[in-house]
């Protein structure tokens, strides 16, 4: 089974990297970008076929390691 965990910065947390990317896009002439926030994507392969079980396992992975919940939110998607 394939799954994806997406980790993003909580709103209100300053993102210097996102700001730098935003500035770079502007200097490349990519118009109309008003904000960039950088995050992380984890593509994960799992044993088994039970979606609920997979979601629980991925939530555990995110809480224990993939995200620092002081500053980050995460989203779990089981892709099947």
């Amino acid at each position, binding site marked *: 089974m394939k799954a994806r965990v997406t980790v993003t910065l909580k709103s209100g*947390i*300053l993102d*210097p*990297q996102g700001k730098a990317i935003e500035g770079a896009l502007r200097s490349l002439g990519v118009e109309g970008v008003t904000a960039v926030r950088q995050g992380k994507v984890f593509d994960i392969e799992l044993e088994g076929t039970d979606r609920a079980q997979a979601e629980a396992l991925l939530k555990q992975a995110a809480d*224990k*390691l*993939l995200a*620092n919940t*002081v*500053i980050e939110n995460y989203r779990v998607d089981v892709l099947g």
Partner: protein
Amino acid sequence: MKSAVLVFPGINRERDMARTLKLISGAEPAMVWHTDTQLPAGTDLVVIPGGFSYGDYLRCGAIAARSPIMDAVRKFAAGGGLVLGVCNGFQILCEAELLPGVLMRNENLRFICREVFLRVERSDTPFTRGYNAGQVIRVPVAHGEGNYIADGETIARLEGEGRVIFRYCSPDGMIDPNWNHNGAINAIAGIVSDKGNVLGMMPHPENHVEASVSPTDGRGLFAGLAEALERAA
């Protein structure tokens, strides 16, 4: 003083730290590998040195914070044992939730390697008894992620409980954005845990201890610690 210096893959300041501990206390520290599950018997100070544990993969300190030796450090700290984390060691202590908050990318996005001035906010801790409150010391920093942040409630609690121990300041001790090199909230350079026995700081006091190569403003931290532990023994 019976100190233990933790060693993780990618750490590179452990020899500087061990050398300073030996120089000031006279006792050779134990070097403890990250897969060990116990600290040496009689350890009275755990030091987590600087470097780039696990290449800063995922987040600085994230993987080291979850290694086997950290369970022993958690137990040691819960029992009141003294823990010092410097630079990557501070990041590891935050990721291990032994200290609140997190060290983000420096505000200017640059790796900063230079001397900084720190204001010692309190002298009544085992880590700062070698200094006077309000004293300004000069020590080096070398980090890309030292921009301390936590939620507003946590910052208010840290400030209210006097747990900010070091702040970046001007040479005459003023808190000024121009001297807050990494953009840390309230110019925070070092904090202690709620019980005051765990200190995390970004600067490297261990690198300023010998007059032949540098100022010696870092000595006070280690001399104070050695004295505090000697008295407790």
